[in-house]
């Protein structure tokens, strides 16, 4: 929790669908929220610094851009090495989400998850081979779970 106040939340609400594509977009947000533009800029700058805003820009649609294959690669990595290896996997430009998560033995042995994107399964597999090489001797097992079907996809809802 990052101590957002009511004005922050109004700025978030006004921009979750996007910024207006016009010459002075922050002025338009300020007019909608009812605060001066300097206030919008100062608060968005602060939210960038605290990580509430990850980034400001274009959000590509992978599927429409031909980056349509995605596999959830999962890795059983030595616990002593995972915190050192994880950030290097997360920094690869074809990996969009990378987390350490708990094992559920015996059903699930994998502790590192990395979502890998490519234009085809062959490309995803080539990327996965690159991750395997990067992990090296700390790797004990791995798998790729391809998505067969999207069952539901709605936006995460904003608290408040």
């Amino acid at each position, binding site marked *: 929790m990052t101590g957002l106040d009511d004005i922050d939340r109004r700025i978030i609400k006004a921009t979750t669908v996007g910024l207006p594509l016009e010459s002075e977009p922050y002025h338009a947000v300020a007019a909608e929220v009812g605060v001066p533009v300097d206030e919008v800029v100062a608060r968005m700058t602060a939210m960038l610094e605290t990580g509430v805003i990850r980034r400001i820009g*274009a959000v590509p649609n992978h599927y429409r851009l031909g980056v349509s294959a995605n596999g959830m690669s999962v890795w059983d990595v030595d616990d002593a090495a995972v915190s050192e290896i994880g950030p290097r996997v997360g920094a690869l*430009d074809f990996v969009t989400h990378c987390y350490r998560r708990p094992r559920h033995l015996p059903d699930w042995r994998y502790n590192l998850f990395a979502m890998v994107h490519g234009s085809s399964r062959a490309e995803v597999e080539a990327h996965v081979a690159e991750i395997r090489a990067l992990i090296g001797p700390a790797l004990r097992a791995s798998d790729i779970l*391809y998505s067969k079907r999207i069952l539901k996809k709605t936006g995460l809802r904003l608290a408040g």
Partner: protein
Amino acid sequence: MRPAAAEKVELDEVDRRIVNDLQGGLPLEARPFAIVGERLGISEGELIRRLRRLLDGGALTRFGPLYNADRMGGAFTLSAMAVPAERFEEVAAIVNSFVEVAHNYERDHALNMWFVIGCEDAARVGAVIAEIEAATGLAVHDFPKEEEYFVEFKVTV
């Protein structure tokens, strides 16, 4: 008309530069598109027109700030279930009926249903899991993140 979901959108060289350059870093300045346009060698007006076209054509899902949901006070987890094939549709309908379930994917593994639960109140996550287990009679494996290594979203086109 937007193209069909599977249809690939064709980009020209300038579009590609825009998509590759502008996945973050829009300046918090009065006229940000003028600044970025100058960097890309196009006018403010052309950049705005092209962004509108990329959005309308479906190449971009949105343009603006990308919020980090779990820094805004919510709690999130990734969960999975092993659903028997003959019950798959029935169980999918039950899981999807929870408003807290944001994404749900069928994947090719013994654990064949993977979904993200997002709640405003962290205590609610465990309750949703218990309710899904009660409603389906199946175990839910919960995989909350313990560390985040994801550095930055980036796709090169």
